[in-house]
């Protein structure tokens, strides 16, 4: 019970501290923090509290922002559960994006099947991209952090090469538009939210959250993954296949991130894109997983939180608040969570010492 309590209390404290720091930065630089909170409110509810107007397009865009980072959050969280640090969600996402683009442009299939194929191909590609660091870790004991960082950049340049060389982009930035059969787009959902980019992507996202919860909490496989995360040697001694679990964990983590790539490419957008730099979905995923304490429900909620921050950025900018305040708040929250050992230590020292308690 105590563990569950701190799993909620600590992120909550970090979130509060992060927003407080963000407000402080705004005040220190002569900006009003109230406008930031109004922008966040408007991005979630669609209600402009100053003008008293309501526009559902904001709600749609908010969900669009939250979808991919929930998936990269699941990716990072799944690896965390096995004691692995997956900084490579960004690269796995891009591998998924390349695969989804390939299926969308090259494969001919009926509407439902085509988009399903694109999603599956993206998951397979992401899984493959995750399998490399997993296998290198299991076979050669090479640290996954460095390998996944390197794989991010390899994926970025592979993507940019593929857009031009494989998909024959005319302007070297965008591929040809995808056929409607390959896309998650829905005119009805878009019309419902006043022309937002909202699409069926939330279906696979919600399904992924349930699958994550089921694998981790309800299966023997998930239990053995967590056992490896808690104590590698202990798990090995208990007869669990540690190396196989490490590879599988990275494959599944990669598949979640790969799916995010498809949701962005055939959902939010309708063409493949060459990118000047990584877009930061992988880093967002780390923040989402840390705040969500690597649990499905936590990742869902923190995905909404950071989705709100991302969605509010354009609104903040129009109200004269530099939109980068969102990244500052996000980074502060991550930093505060990273400091948990020190912070809990300080809290314990300050708080009344209970008799018989271990320090």
């Amino acid at each position: 019970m105590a563990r569950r309590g701190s799993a909620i209390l600590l992120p909550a404290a970090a979130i509060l501290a992060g927003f407080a720091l963000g407000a402080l930065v705004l005040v220190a630089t002569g900006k009003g923090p109230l406008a930031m909170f109004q922008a966040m409110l408007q991005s979630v509810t669609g209600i402009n509290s100053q003008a008293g107007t309501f526009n559902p397009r904001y709600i749609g865009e908010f969900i669009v922002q939250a979808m991919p980072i929930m998936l990269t959050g699941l990716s990072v969280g799944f690896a965390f559960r096995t004691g692995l640090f997956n900084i490579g969600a960004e690269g796995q996402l891009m591998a998924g994006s390349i695969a989804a683009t390939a299926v969308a442009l090259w494969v001919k299939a009926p509407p439902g099947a085509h988009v399903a194929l694109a999603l599956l191909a993206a998951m397979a590609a992401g899984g493959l991209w995750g399998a490399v660091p997993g296998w290198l870790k299991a076979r050669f004991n090479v640290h996954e952090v460095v390998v996944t960082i390197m794989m991010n950049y390899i994926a970025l340049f592979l993507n940019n090469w593929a857009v031009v060389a494989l998909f024959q982009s005319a302007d070297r930035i965008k591929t040809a538009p995808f056929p409607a059969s390959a896309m998650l787009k829905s005119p009805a959902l878009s019309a419902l939210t006043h022309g937002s980019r909202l699409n069926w992507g939330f279906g696979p996202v919600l399904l992924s959250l349930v699958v994550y919860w089921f694998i981790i909490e309800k299966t023997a496989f998930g239990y053995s993954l967590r056992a490896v995360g808690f104590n590698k040697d202990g798990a090995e001694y208990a007869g669990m296949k540690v190396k196989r679990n490490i590879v599988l964990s990275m494959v599944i983590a990669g598949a979640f991130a790969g799916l995010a790539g498809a949701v962005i490419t055939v959902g939010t957008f309708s063409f493949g894109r060459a990118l000047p730099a990584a877009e930061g979905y992988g880093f967002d995923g780390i923040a989402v997983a840390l705040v969500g304490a690597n649990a499905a429900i936590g990742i869902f909620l923190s995905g909404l939180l950071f989705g709100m921050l991302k969605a509010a950025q354009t609104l903040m900018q129009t109200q004269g608040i530099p939109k980068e305040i969102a990244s500052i708040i996000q980074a502060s929250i991550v930093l505060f969570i990273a400091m948990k050992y020190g912070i809990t230590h300080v809290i314990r020292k300050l708080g009344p010492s209970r008799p018989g308690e271990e320090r």
Partner: protein
Amino acid sequence: MTILLTMLPIALIYATPIIIAALGGLFSERSGVVNIALEGIMMVGGFAAAAVTVVLEPSPMAGCWGILAGVAAGLLFSSLHAFACVHLKADQVVSGTALNILAGGITVYLCQIFFDQQRTNAFATGIAKLSVPGLARLPVLGALLFRDVYPTTYAALLLVALTWFVVARTPFGLRLRACGEHPQAAASMGIDVVRMRYAGVLISGALAGLAGGTMVLTQDIQYSLTSVHGTGFIALACLIFGKWKPAGVLGAGLFFGLSQATSIYAKDIPLLQAVPQDFFYMLPYVLTVAALVVFSGRSVGPRAAGEAYDPGKR
């Protein structure tokens, strides 16, 4: 041959910040603190350098003050990493990630406050190139090393030698390495592990700040979100590829710089014409993964890097 002669000075310009930042990483990791925040620290250093240069120009010393501001900003920013990792025993990779996110946010935020746009204003010269009198007229070598060279390139070479001397030949270096190999053993010999790790991270911050300032003032016209574009991670790759040794860092840095310069000139080189530019960009990362596999099983990197110091552990 003429292509090579035009390419090599460009390669040196690219290699300079990679080498300096990688030396920074060396100090941090040798003390036992993994620093994946090199990228973020470079961004902060690059922003500070560009901002100060823009404000002080046309003073001829503007670039110098800019570089100093970069060093100071890097040092200050890295103290966050040191405080989190050494004092509060934060996960070093998580803390580094937070710093990388924070750097992108805070630099562009300040650009908007100071310059009312997403980047700093453009500076006129940044750092001026110099030619060494006499030596510049040497046949081939003059054009490569002594004519129109940025002083920061010499600084990088000097820092390689200095780092080697400090890490390999001084008591400070020995203590630093001891903290990265076995902090508990080092502590038992009376070494203050916390202080040594602080020193390692702060030196890495100063150097990465210098690298960021150098990069922006020699390769760019202003600071923007994409000014550093992954060079901090190439520096991390350079550190690993160079086996955590100064001479190795120099070699790897030059090689990575050359691979970037080649990507620009490949269209003029018959053998390389067919290779897409993106593949040259990819090369450092692919090679580093390969190097990690080759090094695996041998103890190449600092053994205790990445672990929080726990005095009670044996």
